[in-house]
């Protein structure tokens, strides 16, 4: 036998020894592998405790909650979660350990309590692993769902993903025995782990800690010890404890103390949870999909009935009709047939989760369904399979930390919210008042009852920025406390909670840059700590998806204000705002290029183009880059200026920008002016030009002369036709500037004196009539050839 063959044989033998040890329920330490939120696991861990009566139950959970385990035995309504949070070097971070009734961990806790078996959480506190892990939902099974082994096994078992795989192996078998469960779950999880190329440092650290706890418990125990952890860890823990050769040799890595941030504040508390957050289809990196479905399966298991999908189907039909979706009896028959046929094709005795979803997709949707796209039917299925259960904490549970934070901050700001109501006026430039304003804005964003802003500076209109102030009306009601507790779902500290609430608000919008900008202003008012990365990312997305130039350029104006001109909020030159600024700039520029002929909004268009010019100038002036390339800007505007399908005022404005930036010379502007010499267009073109090149235009004698020449060539009718838009164009100049322009004109024409215009003694209508008469007269003279030759 060759060496390689020997080592392969040896390896196989070692695998078998370890697996046999894991299956053994008579040993001193029994390992129970779970997939978090698995009803089958929950039922069987209960059976095992009943059968084994261990002397200790050790559960994967935050060990810093151990001294408060009693709180879990109060009469809570599930789902609830243990919320662990900390603050380190200015960053806030928190993670949830959610429990629902069918969680194996919860079931283990309950059964252990029934037999008064000492229970203990054995996982590292979140604060100590947070540095290595980004997952804030601690029971998410992320390590099980990925990897080569799962992919290969899915292919071989003919299922789509890990969720289906687990259903196929464990969950959809009602009468799976404890022994079979242990064999299937251990073997699956062990192999997933074996195929992993590297085990993450987070897992190694946690396992080293858990193994330590288990060893200690074993020494103190009089009987068997039951260890309930995620299946991914079971084999590694057994290997460590029993000294098998599978404890990865990566432990050296752990000796090098990684620099972890200094923890300034930490806490742990119970908080409410909901199926909506538990659902991996709606929640971020949450546990299992369709919690409502598993809840239903769990209840049927408890009732001792066989699984039947019929009541779920009834529920679905009810939901469809509630959502006003037509569903005939024939459709229902088609759904039922398809569901059963799919279950049969997938080799199942009864219809299961995926079969139901697929049957609805197949039989009811009569249109294109983009992948990941929403359809009312699919939404309804997900709503039913998600369930709407929300948790509630029992009386006497300690208050969530956010509520304490709010009370502390209100006391510090010396704001007392009373039943009779109270009006507060704040000056935002006063260092004492600004924090108060921020606090109140945060409460308002969180939807706390009784906080109302009654007046103040409008930072979106920016009409009057001479005084930065606001007034508030505050009134206490019972809803005040209730809304504070509800707001704890957004986080434990007020700033954090406000930041996540703002991100959530941003997710509710679609392709709306204006909404993005107004949210950013709200966030600025609530203090710059609430401008989180997530918020900035979402706002960038909203800006990127905006489809109207006016919207994007309007947003650009707001962001430019915050980035360059703000005095109160401290947003000036903030890199995150800069990022949004460049996003809005790029988007506006692109939409400008696509802009078609939409008349009626010229002043807004010009304001938008002005924001573009201003941003580009700011970028050129300031040392830091806001991501707008001058050369590209000029290239785009040159294209806009030449585009015959654009409005005259937009082309005028583009010409104005190019002139201001020195990218176009006087000759070109004059040539452009000749293109728009028609009476219907000249005013529009000039209003664009003057709006964007005010300084340059008023000092240019040639331009003024050319305009003068063009206008004197107009007939009276033409002149009258062009008058309104010309008037508008010249309103961009102050009277002084107009005077200056006239002086330039007169001087260049060689006229010495400027007389004020003669004041008419008749009204405008009479004057116009006289002019028209005169015009007709001259026309007639010309017609009959009575004109005197010009000299």
């Amino acid at each position, binding site marked *: 036998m060759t060496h390689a063959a020997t080592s392969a044989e040896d390896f196989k033998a070692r695998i078998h020894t370890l697996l046999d040890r894991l299956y053994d329920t008579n040993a001193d330490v029994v390992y129970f592998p779970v997939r978090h939120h698995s009803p089958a696991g929950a039922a069987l861990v209960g059976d095992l405790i009943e059968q084994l009566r261990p002397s200790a139950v050790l559960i994967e959970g935050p060990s810093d909650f151990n001294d408060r385990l009693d709180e879990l035995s109060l009469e809570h309504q599930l789902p609830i979660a243990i919320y662990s949070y900390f603050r380190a070097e200015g960053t806030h971070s928190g993670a949830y350990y959610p429990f629902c009734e069918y969680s194996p961990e919860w079931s283990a806790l309950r059964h252990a309590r029934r037999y008064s078996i000492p229970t203990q959480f054995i996982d590292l506190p979140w604060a100590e692993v947070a540095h290595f892990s980004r997952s804030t939902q601690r029971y998410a099974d992320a390590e099980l769902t990925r990897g080569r082994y799962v992919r290969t096994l899915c292919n071989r078992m*003919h299922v789509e993903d890990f969720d289906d795989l687990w259903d196929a192996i464990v969950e959809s078998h009602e009468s799976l025995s404890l022994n079979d469960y242990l064999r299937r779950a251990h073997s699956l999880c062990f192999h997933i782990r074996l195929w992993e190329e590297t085990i993450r440092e987070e897992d190694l650290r946690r396992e080293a800690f858990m193994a330590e706890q288990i060893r200690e418990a074993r020494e103190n125990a009089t009987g068997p010890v039951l260890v309930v952890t995620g299946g991914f860890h079971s084999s590694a823990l057994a290997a460590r404890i029993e000294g098998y050769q599978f404890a990865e040799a990566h432990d050296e890595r752990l000796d090098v103390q990684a620099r972890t941030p200094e923890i300034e504040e930490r806490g742990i508390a119970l908080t409410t949870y909901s199926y909506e957050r538990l659902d991996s289809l709606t929640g971020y990196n949450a546990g299992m999909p369709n919690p409502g479905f598993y809840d239903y399966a769990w209840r049927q298991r408890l009732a001792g009935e066989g699984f039947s999908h019929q009541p779920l189907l009834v529920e679905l039909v009810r939901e469809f009709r509630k959502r006003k979706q037509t569903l005939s009896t024939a459709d229902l028959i088609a759904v039922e047939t*398809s569901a059963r046929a799919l279950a049969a*094709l997938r080799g199942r005795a009864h219809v299961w989760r995926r079969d139901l979803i697929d049957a609805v997709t197949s039989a009811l949707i*009569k249109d294109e*369904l983009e*992948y990941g796209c929403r359809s009312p039917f699919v939404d309804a299925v997900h709503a039913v399979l998600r369930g709407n259960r929300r948790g509630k904490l029992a009386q006497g549970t300690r208050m969530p930390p956010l509520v304490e934070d709010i009370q502390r901050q209100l006391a510090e700001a010396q704001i007392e919210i009373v039943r009779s109501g109270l009006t507060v006026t704040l000056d935002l430039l006063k260092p004492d008042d600004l924090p108060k304003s921020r606090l109140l804005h945060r409460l308002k964003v969180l939807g706390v009852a009784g906080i109302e802003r009654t007046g103040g500076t409008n930072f979106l209109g920016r009409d009057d920025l001479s005084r930065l102030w606001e007034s508030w009306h505050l009134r206490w009601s019972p809803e005040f406390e209730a809304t504070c507790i509800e707001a704890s779902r957004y986080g434990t500290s007020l700033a954090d909670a406000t930041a996540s609430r703002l991100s959530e608000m941003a997710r509710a919008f679609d392709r709306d840059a204006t909404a993005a900008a107004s949210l950013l202003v709200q966030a600025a008012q609530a203090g710059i700590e609430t401008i989180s990365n997530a918020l900035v990312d979402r706002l960038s997305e909203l800006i990127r998806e905006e489809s109207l130039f006016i919207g994007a350029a309007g947003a650009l104006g707001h962001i430019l204000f915050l980035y360059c001109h703000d005095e109160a909020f401290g947003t000036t030159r903030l890199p995150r705002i800069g990022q949004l600024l460049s996003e809005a700039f790029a988007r506006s520029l692109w939409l400008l290029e696509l802009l078609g002929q939409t008349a009626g909004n010229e002043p807004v268009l010009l304001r938008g183009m002005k924001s573009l010019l201003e941003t580009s100038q700011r970028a050129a002036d300031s040392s830091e880059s806001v991501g707008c390339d001058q050369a590209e800007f000029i290239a785009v505007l040159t294209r806009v200026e030449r585009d015959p399908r654009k409005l005259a005022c937009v082309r005028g404005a583009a010409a104005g920008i190019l002139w201001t930036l020195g990218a176009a010379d006087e000759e070109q502007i004059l040539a452009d002016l000749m293109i728009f010499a028609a009476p219907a267009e000249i005013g529009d073109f000039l209003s664009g030009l003057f709006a964007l090149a005010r300084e340059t235009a008023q000092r240019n004698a040639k331009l003024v002369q050319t305009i003068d020449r063009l206008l004197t060539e107009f007939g009276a009718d033409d002149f009258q036709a062009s008058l309104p838009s010309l008037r508008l164009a010249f309103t961009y100049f102050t009277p002084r500037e107009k005077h200056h322009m006239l002086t330039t004109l007169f001087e260049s024409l060689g006229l010495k004196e400027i007389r004020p215009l003669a004041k008419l003694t008749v009204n405008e209508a009479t004057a116009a009539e006289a002019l028209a008469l005169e015009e007709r007269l001259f026309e007639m003279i010309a017609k009959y050839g009575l004109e005197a030759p010009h000299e």
Partner: protein
Amino acid sequence: MAKKSASSQVTSDAKASDAAGASLQRPSAEFLYAEELASLETSCASEPRPPGWRLSPRAVLEFVLGSPEKGVASKFVGRRAFLERCIVSLATNRGLMLIGEPGTAKSYLSELLASAISGDSTLTIQGSAGTTEDNIRYSWNYALLVSEGPTDRSLVPAPLFLGMSQGKIVRFEEITRCPLEIQDVLLSILSDRVMAIPEFQDDSRMLFARAGFNIIATANTRDRGVNEMSAALKRRFNFETVAPISEISQEMDLVQRESTRHLELSKVPVTLSPEITELLVTTFRELRQGKTTDGKGIEPLSAVLSTAEAVSTASAAGIHAYYYDNGVIHPRHLIQHMVGTVLKDNPDDLKKVQHYFEHVVKARRQAHWKDFYDARGDLC
């Protein structure tokens, strides 16, 4: 009858010559994969199957998605659940409607399913503005009709008639191109599974469909609104959307494989380098999805940029390089042949492509992306 036997003569001749050396431009799936179908048929002999089906539903799935253990090649890239739904639909009393963007292999999938289930993918109705009832149900050989009256001999069966009488899958391509009244011919056939032939006497007046008959229709989402299907007909179909390939690596493999096959058929010994495939597939995907691979948003084009279009662009570039250049495909060849694909009719698309090259392609540092950017002149 004479006509029919003549046509079968041609087919068998063609098959014979094909065995000697390929002469068919595109043999049907049941012919191309005859061996695989035969071995699957034996291996699934004991499994339950819907009446009239040649393979069990599980074996059909294996035929389409491939099964390395049984030596069956993968023929279609798609999600398993989606295919399971398609196959189950065909086993129920509803037809299967495949919809999706042009070039997502709808017709190919319907061919694969028909050949796996019925062993025959040739019962095909091509929907068009000129499709008539005769093309779908049956028509008459008028000389025989005059001399013999309405008999089996004088009736000329169309695909639907054949499918119903033989218990086979009938394919209806581009159903939404047909006028509404023609589409609605299917109504009674799908619900009652019977076709009336009023010219015949007594018993043979009704043609009852044999087990195994069903319809796979395909429709193009770009043609939506041309002849919107009636609600009654929609109800008789299960709709499945064929999605573009979700994994970029799978799409690259497919483009590489298919374009090589096309070039081999044209006797052009040129293959796509991995860089060229990456350029082509990435560009097509990004312009199609409106999102770059690193998550930046861009404007999606209104032109159709399917995997099939990518394959034909690649083959055209290969042929170009072989005959007019040194036989190595350069990014410039891609650009030249993308012009016809990308810039079909919408002038805004040109701006979007310019924007894409200036903002996305320009920023990429690798040499082949640089070449791609430098060669953009033909396109922008």
